[in-house]
């Protein structure tokens, strides 16, 4: 299997652990990943204004790149990229007039976009095309005894027409963790917002969110929390520094990308896990469970 | 390949077993290449049967006559009629079965495939041969025809001389039969309605000009109606005024007739005749092309029926003659039928 891959900015900067663990895992699963040549920013957040087409140009340009690479679908890792690209795609699909306008704006591009590219998240790829049971068959190092809380945040599930699972009670990450042999922990805050981009200007909001989300997960017995969005990862992991300051009763907990857990299970080398990028080092607990 | 000997063997067998009263097939006519319908009652006569790309007629029309004849007989022979059918003809049978015009027991169907090719268009063939006398035409292995003339055998491409409808046929094999000879090969067609395109691409006024010219020609000989297996009505709605007037028709009865159109073959009346016929064939026409073939004035009648066939398929997913149990196009509906033109 071969798949076009759109990384996005953060995976190349702060979230190399996300990318490396994914690429290593997919290699082990026999999936050939082809990074889009010449990709650009996805536009980061989907513009919510009806009259604002210019913000979708970046997204659509990326989808043109996918077309140029002779593919009909593209895989994303970052939940924000997934959300932005997919929503922009749905937007132009349902409104030919704006598609036409955007195409006219990009008159230098060789091809016109027609709304025909499918935007996939890695989780969808794993569930529908590779299939969890096939991943399970390749597990060398089952994640035994590790209690994992899956945090979805906003962008994987909302809005309803974009979300890759039930909007209120998604279970795709839990199901995947079961396939890897782990013990999934359910907690009520799994789709509650982490504060998102407020982290830049108002880190105190994020600290509060992080406190509530992580405390809730810990109360349910979670030992680590997994995420699929580099912004969530940053807010839940690095902002634990601010969280402790604001809430002295807060206890730290490691945050991992779900792909890191997959990489461990598939037996990828430790270099691909890039634990050096974590604020709270997950190594002790993983060591404890005999996983690394 | 349909083996003619097999065909003869099969027909002989059912005649010998007396399962049918007679068999309708094709035999060579006295006038050149084109065959004529053969009515075979004796097993020994099966030797007359032929099967080749010139067997153009849709023999299912004879069932209409058979039914009428039978209705008049005092002690009718209840046995079935054996009928040799091509793909399109078999779909005609399905429509007749669907409309309960015939019963399945009334007919023993001997299906033959068109060898993934089709039937020749007499006029195209004549043009191609430039006046040379043709002795024989056969199917060849490669979807082509082998013709024999005084000059000997030549293989010619079927595409150039096939009947228009065969060029647009998706399944040149029977869909209903008791015996089947040949192979079932589905054809992949890029555009099963190619013949319509030239007209559909015209502007409204150009289309009108085209059809006006065609309809002006019509002399209302009704050959199209007479040959059509679906035109089996006892009395055609367009000519009630004329048909029913007999010596014993009372004046009051005459007043109760509707003059939907005038008898005189002027354009306006011809158009209404053809429109009525087209709409009455919507969802029923199986595109055997006989109407067009018999038209003495070469009016492309098939293009009218084909248009509605296309719309029925594209708008309602309906195809005529595929299944004798389906409910007809106009007596069924789906909730999601398109209605974008409705205000």
């Amino acid at each position, binding site marked *: 299997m071969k798949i076009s891959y759109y990384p996005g900015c953060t995976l190349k900067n702060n979230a190399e652990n996300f990318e490396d663990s994914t690429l290593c895992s997919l290699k082990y699963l026999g999936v050939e990943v082809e990074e889009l040549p010449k990709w650009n920013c996805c536009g980061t957040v989907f513009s919510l204004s009806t009259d604002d087409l210019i913000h979708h140009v970046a997204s659509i340009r990326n989808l043109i790149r996918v077309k140029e690479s002779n593919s009909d679908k593209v895989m994303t890792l970052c939940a924000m990229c997934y959300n932005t690209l997919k929503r922009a795609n749905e937007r132009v699909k349902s409104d030919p007039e704006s598609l036409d306008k955007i195409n006219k704006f990009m008159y230098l591009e060789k091809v016109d976009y027609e709304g025909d590219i499918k935007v996939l998240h890695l989780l969808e790829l794993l569930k529908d095309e590779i299939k969890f049971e096939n991943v399970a068959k390749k597990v060398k190092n089952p994640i035994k005894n590790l209690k994992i809380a899956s945090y979805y945040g906003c962008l994987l599930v909302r809005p309803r027409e974009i979300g890759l699972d*039930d*909007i*209120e*009670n998604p279970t795709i990450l839990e199901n995947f963790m079961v396939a890897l042999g782990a013990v999934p922990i359910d907690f*009520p805050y799994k789709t509650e917002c982490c504060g998102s981009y407020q982290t830049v200007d108002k880190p105190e909001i994020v600290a509060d969110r992080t406190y509530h989300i992580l405390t*809730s997960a810990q*109360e349910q017995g979670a030992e680590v929390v997994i995420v699929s969005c580099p912004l969530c990862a940053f807010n839940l992991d690095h902002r634990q520094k601010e969280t402790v300051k604001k809430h002295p009763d807060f206890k730290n907990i490691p945050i991992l990308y779900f792909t890191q857990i997959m990489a461990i299970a598939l037996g990828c080398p430790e270099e691909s896990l890039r634990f050096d990028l974590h604020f709270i080092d997950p190594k002790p607990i993983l060591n404890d469970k005999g996983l690394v | 390949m349909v083996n003619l000997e097999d065909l003869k063997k099969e027909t002989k067998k059912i005649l010998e077993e007396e399962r049918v009263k007679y068999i309708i097939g094709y035999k060579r006519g006295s006038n050149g290449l084109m065959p004529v319908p053969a009515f075979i009652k004796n097993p020994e006569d099966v030797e007359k049967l032929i099967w080749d790309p010139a067997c153009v007629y849709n023999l299912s029309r004879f069932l209409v006559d058979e039914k009428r004849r039978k209705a008049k007989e005092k002690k009718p022979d209840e046995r079935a009629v054996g009928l040799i059918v091509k793909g399109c003809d078999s779909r005609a049978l399905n429509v007749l079965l669907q*409309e*309960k*015009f015939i019963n399945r027991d009334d007919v023993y169907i001997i299906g033959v495939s068109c060898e993934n090719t089709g039937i020749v268009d007499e006029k195209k063939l004549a043009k191609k041969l430039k006046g040379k006398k043709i002795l024989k035409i056969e199917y060849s292995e490669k979807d082509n025809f082998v013709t024999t003339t005084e000059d000997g055998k030549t293989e010619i491409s079927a595409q150039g001389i096939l009947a228009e409808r065969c060029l647009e046929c998706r399944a040149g094999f029977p869909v209903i039969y008791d015996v089947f000879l040949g192979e079932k090969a589905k054809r992949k067609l890029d555009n099963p309605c190619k013949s319509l395109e030239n007209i559909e691409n015209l502007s409204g006024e150009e289309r009108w000009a085209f059809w006006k010219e065609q309809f002006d020609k019509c002399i209302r000989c009704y050959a199209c109606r007479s040959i059509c297996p679906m035109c*089996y*009505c*006892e*009395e055609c*709605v367009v000519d009630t005024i004329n048909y029913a007037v007999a010596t014993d028709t009372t004046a009051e009865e005459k007043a*109760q*007739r*509707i*003059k*939907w159109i005038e008898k005189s073959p002027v354009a306006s009346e011809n158009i209404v005749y053809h429109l009525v016929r087209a709409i*009455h064939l919507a969802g029923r026409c199986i595109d055997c092309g006989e109407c067009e073939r018999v038209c003495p004035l070469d009016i492309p009648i098939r293009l009218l029926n084909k248009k509605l066939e296309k719309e029925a398929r594209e708008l309602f997913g309906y195809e005529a003659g595929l299944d004798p149990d389906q*409910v*007809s196009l*106009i*007596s*069924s509906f789906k909730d999601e039928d398109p209605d974008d033109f409705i205000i």
Partner: protein
Amino acid sequence: MKRTGVFICRCGINIAGTVDVEKVAKELYKHTGVVHSEDYIYMCSDPGQNLIVEAIKEKKLDSVIIACCSPTLHETTFRNAAKSAGLNPFQCEIANIREQCSWVHKDMEKATEKSIKITRSAVERVRRNESLEPISIPVTRKALVIGGGISGIQSALDLANSGFEVILVERSPSIGGHMIQLSETFPTLDCSQCILTPKMVEASKHPKINLMTYSEVQEISGYVGNFKVKILKKPTYVDPDKCTLCDECTRVCPVVVPNEFDIGLTGRRAIYIPFPQSIPATYTLDIKACPGLLPIACGKCEDVCEPNAIDFDMKPEIIEEEVGTIIAATGYDLYEKELMSEYGYGKYPDVLDGLQFERLCSASGPTMGKILRPSDHKEPKEVVFVQCVGSRDPELHCAYCSKICCMYTAKHAMLFKHHVHDGQAYIFYIDIRSGGKGYEEFVQRAVEEDGVLYLRGKVSKIFGDKGKLKVWGVDTLSGKDIEIDADMVVLAMATRPSKGAEELAKKLKIAIDKDGFLSEAHPKLRPVESVTSGMFLAGAAQAPKDIPEAVAQASGAAAKAITILSQERLYHAPTVAMVNVNLCTGCEMCVHVCPYDALSLKDGKVEVNEVLCEGCGTCSATCLRAAIQIKNLTPLQVHEMIKACLGG
């Protein structure tokens, strides 16, 4: 040639103001076959009608046209007038020159011209009208009531007490419906079971009521006055006559499944009695839960049954009945709670729906009337009630207001306070709808006497937190977001048409509305009738209703049914389809399109059941041969009308 008279109404100035009626009369008099033509100021007045009667007699008219207002207004008036002059009423037709002409045009010349066309076209039609007699239908004086809830019971009792035989069909093993599950009823706090059980007993003992429980209507054919129904009687595998209710069977049955009566709060065996007051009072073997009917598969119940009441060989029976009228009282179900995933139903045992809470309050319920948490059987102190769960939510759930939840939630909160004196009840609401006798006072009592705290806002999320349920809501009155650590949450789920109602509606040919409730014939004037004549609606099958409303509608439906059953014969318009057998080829296209199954094939030709035919004419347009036509609106008539309309 017929002798037609034309009468043009001036309607004061309503017609004469824009139409030159004298010209119309003059022009029409020139028309072939018209032997009389006049105008008058008010044709519908007594002198106006007398003009018509006199003219018919004097000029020996055999057909008349009245050019006046819409036929919906005075067709009957004029037909009766014609009848009184000895004319067949179907020789009188209306030309609508008011609503469709004088009232919508201003130009006198053009309006006059159009009136002439309309009237001529009517003349052309009536010239070819046949004289027809109404079709008379005998009536089977028996009723079928579908659904054994309070509405069905009430309808059946009303019909039976009026002297008509009734078949009451209920699909579950006992009648009683949802009302029998309730603990108390608002606003009087009567014990629901205490008021319903006497009615249930009365229905079961009534000599005129044939009670068929555990049965479903399978097929319905026929028409008003003469319906044929097939009822499937499902096997209970227990002979009610032999069963002594000793309860030995349930003691040995190895299966435990959730008890529907307690909405899963308790369990029941595969062989069970739904609730102690069940009617009929007998056991039922639930074949879906039973390990198998073969004695070899389990058979423990059969072994211990001393009176040998258990019969594994019992087979489903199909019972055919004939009835004159049908009442659909199929009731409601609560909305699928699983669809409200933000409220955690199914995930947290202490999140309940309204009916479950009723069972908890009920003295005969799973807790003997003690309100306890399902999770730990402790008494909850802080209980949150959420209204409009799934109702008034056009985006995701049901668009409509479920109507009963405001009141029953107030009742729930009140009952909670009566059971748990030191408890606190909170109700999240959007609007309180308490229109009903004593209803508003009841809500006020809950607030003032029982201290129920009403919070105006919708709850957004409920989740488990340290043994409590965290409820995130808002109080829009104070503009504060609210968090309550509740011991129990009760969701007032939307009411939905009961499962299977849609399927049944198809069989009955009753239309359903966009929400799946059975449609009434007219929202204001025919609220208990369905569009299909002879079929009536009762109770929550038509829309959410509380008990008094359901009972009132049930009695209304029964009264409507009696208007049919009390007659010996019914009459039906004779403008129905007719077949020209010479032209018919029996292709069955018309049979497929007939919405009333009025057409069938006989000897290769179509035959019309005139009683079923409503005269819509879809058959006639479908027929390729014009072999089937509607009487008095034949293709010939339409053809001549088209000609007249086009002025030629």
